[in-house]
């Protein structure tokens, strides 16, 4: 697979489904770490707040909008090959519960 390029700004608030097509949440945050000159993605945070997407709000730190705790998805469990439809590489409940 050649190294595919993805435009992150187009993924803001994009709906994410799991391997069986079940809706899991919206992409609200991408956590990364700087290593020397590089910056490597560690995990993605999915949130329930659909309103944030319509308003195009990129931050989830807004009082009162976080009913359910955002779902942390390690980098290797989200397939971004098709940016239009990001999908989990497994079922929602199989997500490794990594404590961030």
């Amino acid at each position: 697979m050649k190294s595919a390029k993805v435009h992150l700004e187009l993924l803001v608030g994009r709906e994410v489904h799991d391997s069986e097509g079940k809706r899991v949440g919206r992409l609200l945050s991408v956590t990364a770490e700087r290593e020397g000159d590089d910056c490597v993605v560690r995990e993605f945070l999915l949130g329930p707040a659909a309103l944030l997407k319509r308003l195009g709000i990129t931050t989830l730190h807004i009082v009162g909008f976080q009913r359910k705790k955002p779902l942390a998805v390690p980098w290797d469990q989200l397939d971004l090959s098709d940016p239009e439809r990001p999908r989990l590489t497994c079922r929602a409940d199989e997500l490794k519960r990594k404590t961030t």
Partner: protein
Amino acid sequence: MNMKKATQLALGIVTGVGGFFDIGNLATSAQAGASFRLQLLWALALGTILVIFLIEMSGRFAAVSGKALPDAIREHFGFGFWLVPFLVLTLVHVLVLASEIGGICFALHLLTGLRPAVWALPVAILVWLFLWRSIFSTIENSTSLLGLLALGFVVAAVQHHPPSGELLAGMLPSLPHHDPAKYWLIAVSILGSVMAPYLFYFYSSGAVEDKWDSSYVGVNRGIAFLGMGFGSLIAFAAIVVAALVLAPRGIEVDDYHQAAMMLTDAFPFWGFILFAAIMAIACLGAGIEVSLSMAYTTAQTFGWNWGEDLNPREDARFCLVYTGAIFLSSLLILFGIDPLKLTLFTMAISAFVLPFVAIPFLLLMNDRKLLKEHANGWISNTVAAFLLVLSIVLAVVTIPLVFLGGS
């Protein structure tokens, strides 16, 4: 409170007083007083309380985060969310700027008899020169010091001995006895003129220009309460004068000529000249603030270099925004649009776009990560929430009113 802060507080209050009163307040106050005597004072009182809180929040946000409002809104909510309000508010600001320029032109028309349209270009050049040659602090202070002239309304109002009973009654919202559409339209226009969007973007950008930091929160609160409070006093006085001079003569203000004689009872000889001078200076100060506010907002939206203290060579795009805005809006006056009708229509539209201003406030001021302990307390939050509800009601009500009220 060291010396530097004390002077900044004093200057801030003067700017608040001088900068508050503009063509929108003058037109809506004259109309309110002439048509409904003191019955609409409550609208001005409500607007003043809200604007005091909003100005305080804008200043506090800029002082603590070091970012002006447009800058922070784009960063926090993304380009998509900010683009629509940005375009809408830019259009409103062009109309407000045209009204301010129209005000100066009309004042010169009063003094010289030449049609306002004749003055459109010379006035545009005057406003532009103010911005092009002087740095931020001189602009802010010079126009506001001159703006104190508007206290002439307060002197006139006191001389007319307004009936205190009617004054107090006016402070409470009441239903109109005649032509309700016009009553509510003027009420909405008063709110629109008091809570003009450019005030907040200009004030927060100014706080960044003056390099405020979180130790300025106290100064900011003083400026917001005293500056805006005294500033609204002038608008109160304008309503009182119109109510005691024009209303008894059955004169309704649908043309600035009628308003021009408001001060002639109190000051028989130079009342007319004073009115024209106040109108010109208030509009000049406000016109400069609006054009600067547009330049700040645009530059911050796209991340350009900005700052009134920079030489035009260093921030070409920033300067060209206000240059373009000034001459574009002066065209409206050049084409002979009636300045008063333009002002009243603009004030109503300012009320209509309030939700675009209110929503970011509620969200931004609660960002604990950025504002830490200076984030909104429950009082500011309730006011911001109330404003949001009010602004949505205003947005729904304004358009039908504009057609019904026949502005």
